[in-house]
């Protein structure tokens, strides 16, 4: 338990310092942020005063040390565009991102589990293979392309759903669908594969010979067994999932971290960008920690090994 927490904590520190350092040096190497903020018609004095207020007139080593100090206190400085501290801005957008990700993830699981089981059980029928074909297609459509098709159908043609923002309760429908489609397709395929593997196992035969119903065997025993490898895949997918969320937010102008960061990129608002990358790094590591803990609660064998 302590070891898992410790290893994740170490990973968090490495990721944050690594990415923070990378961004820090890239920003400094690529040109003067003061010029970008000051705009085209700034005077030399203007630029100098901006440089001073940002601490850009100090040596690069001094800047780096104070950058690391600020990293520890979560102080990324003021956003150039919003003129407010960067971290609170990111934190204010965080609930929207979490809401979108959570709904999308739930949607993927709720649909993929029965679809995968169906495709496994009906593997030789037309409908079973149709499910697989659908998921093959679904895996090939990137989230922002699905987003475009959804907008076209549900906003432009049918006029059922709003095409951007998070004003109405129904706003969540299209972004979460677009974000979850790839996962849904991927998990359907994987659940089918794991399921078929498990059906050959002895405990399934034993269950059948004891007269258990199929439903009981599938949902109570097989599902529990495949949840361990599924969890490890979910852990691996988390990163990609968050990356997808950023793009989906951009497509639907969803007011989350992703939209904020894309705007920060366009405005060269480095404090906001750094705070966003930092927040996402922490989020991904924490989610991985939750996945680790879920392992422990699901599989007594792993629990025994850890203790």
């Amino acid at each position, binding site marked *: 338990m302590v070891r898992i927490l410790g290893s994740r904590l170490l990973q968090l520190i490495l990721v944050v310092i690594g990415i923070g350092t990378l961004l820090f040096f890239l920003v400094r190497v690529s040109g003067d942020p003061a010029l970008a903020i000051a705009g085209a018609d700034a005077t030399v004095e203007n630029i100098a005063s901006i440089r001073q207020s940002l601490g850009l007139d100090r040596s690069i080593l001094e800047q780096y040390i104070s950058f690391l100090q600020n990293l520890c206190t979560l102080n990324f400085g003021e956003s150039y565009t919003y003129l407010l501290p960067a971290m609170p801005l990111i934190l204010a957008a965080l609930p929207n991102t979490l809401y979108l990700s959570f709904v999308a993830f739930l949607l993927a699981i709720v649909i993929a589990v029965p679809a995968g089981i169906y495709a496994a059980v009906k593997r030789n029928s037309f409908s079973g293979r149709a499910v697989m074909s659908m998921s093959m297609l679904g895996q090939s459509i990137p989230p922002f392309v699905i987003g*475009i098709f959804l907008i076209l159908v549900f906003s432009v043609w049918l006029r059922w759903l709003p095409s951007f923002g998070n004003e109405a309760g129904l706003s969540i429908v299209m972004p979460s669908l677009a974000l979850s489609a790839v996962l849904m397709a991927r998990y359907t395929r994987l659940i089918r594969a794991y399921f078929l593997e498990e059906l050959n196992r002895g405990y399934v035969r034993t269950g059948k010979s004891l007269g258990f119903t199929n439903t009981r065997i599938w949902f109570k025993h097989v599902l529990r067994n495949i949840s361990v490898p599924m969890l490890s895949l979910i852990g691996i997918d988390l990163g990609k999932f968050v990356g997808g969320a*950023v793009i989906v937010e951009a497509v639907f102008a969803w007011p989350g971290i992703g939209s904020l960061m894309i705007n920060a*990129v366009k405005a060269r608002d480095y404090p906001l960008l750094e705070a966003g990358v930092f927040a996402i790094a922490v989020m991904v590591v924490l989610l991985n920690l939750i996945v680790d803990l879920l392992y422990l609660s699901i599989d007594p064998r792993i629990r025994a090994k850890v203790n």
Partner: protein
Amino acid sequence: MQPKMAIGNLLLGSKIASKIAPNGKKSVFLQAGPVCLFLLAIASFLSFTANFWVSQDPGNQDLISRLLPPFTKVDTLNYYFGTDQLGRDVFSRLIHGGKISFAVGLITATFAMIIGGALGLIAAYFRGWQEAIILRVVDIQTAFPFLIVAIAIVSIVGSGLTTIITTLVIWLWTPFARLAHAKALIVKESEFYKAAISSGRSGFGLVFQHIVPNVVGSMMVVWTFIVAQTIIAESSMSYLGLGVPLSTPTWGSMLSEGRNYLENAWWIAVFPAFAIMLTVFCVNVFGDWLSDRIDPQTKKI
């Protein structure tokens, strides 16, 4: 614990793949592999030779004939896929835009395979600290949403074809390293490898003669899936305005321009959307077919 888990997953995957085959009938898509390869070859050939056969300039603006629907004929000009908000020919932009997608996909996946493969082999050959460092980096990078870092890098360094390819290679070498490492470890356990060592072979000769040939097949399979991923990543970045400069048409940037005109000009976004979808689909189907042929044991990791 982490590196072992990675190998564990890989082996888990192979066990499953070997058992599916006798159970389920093969998907129709598995037989469509060669057809998809053929279509991809034609599509990329048409894109790369666009300069010679597409009559309209993809950057040519004509505000009088803006937002024309598909199959409009103006004077002698045929707008098969309509025109966009600046009166540019969507068909011509679509064909020219394919160049970026195909080039970035092929170049990135190839470089990523070479670099990732080499690092994976180094890790497996030396074990020790090399392995620890390389696998640690692979784990961290796999867990982290590198698209975010890629976006940050491109926004800071500035966009351009080289930046995109470099960034994507830095992102996508990890699956190759993981695979090469795992496969090489299996080879190292084999009798022929031990025989080679006891007959005095070592270093490059050993690696290239005995490990590489046993790794290449599965690497090719993963290569195809990475081509698909790269095409998605490139178009995502172009969609966000972080791809090649806007003067060069790409499917991603066409899609993002079309996003604002969905209400009255669906064709600007829909054609590139289909282009991305069909290309990625074909690459994936071909990859599945290939993996069934060369390497049924390593399904997608």
